[in-house]
């Protein structure tokens, strides 16, 4: 039976293209999480509650979407969490120096962009593997944040700035709207434009991409820079949500963000994956965390369950890729 299906699929590449996709793993995991969360607690089945639970993860979700692009093109950026903290601290420092809110935001975004550009230049010009380089800048950026802010919490923002997660359109918090729109825009870019297609080609075979006239280095430089910019946005959003900026914000978040991308079925060695998968994975993380909280399962055990989920997703993703690759 299974064999017949696989033969049938290999004779119909278009059908196989739609069926043999790892993001279906994410969708199934999402459905399982929803069902089991509702089983654990009847209070869970409340859309407004789920939406509210999503807001703390939106900053990670935004970055996960850009990280998906980076991983598809065969690189990785692990300095993301440090860039959140650094841009937030720079934002807080700038505002407290009295240069006004709009200018402080611009400076935060600009500094994020520069951090990303720095990553990108070292990766493309000096040909340093991004996994090593961004572990280095992970420490560097966090270190700069700490020397700027010491152990102080930089606060004192105007009330209109604080608490973006408490502003709604209907029952949907504004951060969730930002995330969804961003996912749709980037998803469309990745699936339907020539630039999106080239990311897959670069990730599949950078040599062939170079010989096909694709500006591999320039594309990667742009991606890393974009990653820095989005981390800047996340830094400002986090500061608005928490009302303070600290050097140790988002510690360890890089792993949680990588988890979202992996859970969504993006292939760690590049060339495969998509935004839909990452979008679904974001909701898996949100629902699991919220569901387990409602069920009063301790934080420590939550981590175990998330880890187990990730392992399952990775095994299934790899299995599916080995099938579609043959």
């Amino acid at each position, binding site marked *: 039976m299974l064999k017949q299906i696989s033969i049938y699929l290999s004779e119909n590449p278009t059908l196989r293209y739609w069926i043999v996709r790892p993001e279906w793993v994410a969708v199934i995991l999402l459905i399982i999480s929803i069902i089991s969360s509702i089983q654990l607690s009847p209070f869970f089945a409340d859309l407004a509650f789920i939406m509210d639970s999503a807001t703390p993860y939106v900053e990670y979700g935004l970055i996960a979407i850009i990280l998906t692009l980076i991983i598809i093109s065969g690189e990785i950026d692990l300095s993301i969490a440090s860039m959140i903290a650094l841009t937030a601290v720079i934002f807080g420092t700038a505002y407290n120096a009295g240069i006004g809110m709009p200018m402080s935001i611009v400076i935060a975004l600009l500094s994020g962009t520069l951090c990303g550009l720095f990553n990108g230049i070292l990766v493309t010009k000096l040909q340093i593997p991004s996994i090593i380089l961004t572990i280095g800048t992970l420490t560097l950026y966090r270190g700069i944040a700490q020397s700027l802010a010491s152990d102080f919490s930089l606060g004192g923002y105007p009330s209109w700035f604080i608490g973006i997660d408490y502003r709604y359109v209907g029952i949907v918090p504004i951060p969730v709207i930002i995330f969804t729109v961003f996912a749709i825009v980037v998803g469309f870019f990745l699936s339907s434009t020539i630039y999106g*297609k080239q990311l897959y080609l670069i990730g*599949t*075979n950078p040599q*062939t991409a170079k010989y096909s*006239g694709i500006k591999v280095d320039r594309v990667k430089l742009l991606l890393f820079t974009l990653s820095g910019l989005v981390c800047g946005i996340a830094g400002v959003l986090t500061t608005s949500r928490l009302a303070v900026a600290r050097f140790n914000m988002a510690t360890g978040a890089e792993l949680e963000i990588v988890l979202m991308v992996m859970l969504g079925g993006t292939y760690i060695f590049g060339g495969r994956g998509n935004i839909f998968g990452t979008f679904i994975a974001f909701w898996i993380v949100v629902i699991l965390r919220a569901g387990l909280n409602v069920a009063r399962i301790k934080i420590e055990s939550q981590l175990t369950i998330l880890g187990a989920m990730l392992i399952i997703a990775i095994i299934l993703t790899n299995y599916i890729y080995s099938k579609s*690759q*043959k």
Partner: protein
Amino acid sequence: MDLNTNNIGKTFSGVNVLRNVDFDLKPGEVHALVGENGAGKSTFVKILSGVYTPTEGSIFLDDKKVNITSPILAQKNGVSLIHQEPQSFSHLSVAENIFMGHMEGSNFSRVKWQDINNKSNEILESIGLKIDPKKVMEGLSIADQQMIEIAGALSKNSKVLIMDEPTSPLTPNEVGKLFDIVNKLKSNGMAIIFISHRLEEIRQISDRVTIFRDGDLITTKNINEVSNEEIIKFMIGRNIEETEVKENQFIKNDEYILNVKNLSLSKKFNDISFNLKKGEILGFAGLVGAGRTEVAKSIFGAEKFDEGEIIYNGESIINNSPNEAINNGFAYVPEDRKQMGIFGSVAVEDNVTSAIPKNISNSIGLINSKTVSKMTNDYINKFNIILTSGRQLIEELSGGNQQKCIISKWLLSKPKVLILDEPTRGVDVGVKSEMYEIINKLAEEGTAIILISSELPEILSLSHRIIVMREGKITKILNNKEATQENIMRYAIN
């Protein structure tokens, strides 16, 4: 030690690369192996040294049948292989490199430094080398590293020494030094197999020569009973006249599209000058490593060049990247299909349209998937590419069909200058002749073509002119009338 082989053959996944090799080697003899790339000599010495196991036949050492199934077993039987590029542990000392794998004592006993240093010294002195055994390998010249590899073979009491193109990385001075050592070993009764493409060296050092061609051992001769001309003839076979030579009639115009002047890149190629007409097929012949691919890559902008000038359509240009080259009307079908030609786990249609992003998208970059499918299907029909649909992954196609896809990809970019690097490698005979038709037709339509190929019949039947390269230099430019397999080989080797 006497070494004999009886009826040795080797088959790789159904392809017979070596047949019925009866070979003999005597102690105190230097026995040269020659043949074109792919003639089977490397496969043969890899069998002798235990890298490959033969599919059939047997090996005898001193008339005793031996089973050499691994390099370690070969060494235990006294057969050692000296690699073309020395295989050393560059951070360890000379003595450690010499005694690697066969130090005294068990795996857990301490290293007797004094002992191996003294023994290394003895061996090095016995071949006339003055190197401190405590020195770290890194920083020694290639020649010295090679000598140390020989010393390693001596420390294992090897009786048969196989040297695979040992002279190609050496300077003339170092070659002399190596030959002194070879002569010394020979007078001590060592049996030596010596592979080289340089006939002069073979003449200088060896006693006998064995010629391989297309997996067959053609003949073994005493070196002073055979001329260089005869050796070359044996290497390329007798069917020289059978290869048809291209008619040069339609290329009467004098429209030069490309003029390459004194192109040089250090350690790769030197002083390369040639010109190319519209509609001309210019063959590049030579042995592997002659620098042909490097020249092609520099023209295409994938590599830099140090000196020289490229004049294209009357203007001096530099392609700084493949992207610029493609926009200027160049195309390059690379030699290594898997590494540089295809996007393996990507659909055929995305492969075929990967070099023409502007033609398949609108001004803001949206892909028109109908155009993609149509363009791909046109070429699938035109070139008779066998697949289930354009959405099939390219890695699932056969080598020949993959190659047709790559050619389609570059034809879609409408190149003025098309560089083909070994376009028919790993392609079956049927597809090959289809490919020849395509190439000829393109030239008739006015595309200027640079054809790099190691297959002489292919280069002879397709090219209008043939450039022969050796060790990074152009040794001869032949018109198709005067080109034969024989004189191409002569300029490629000497």
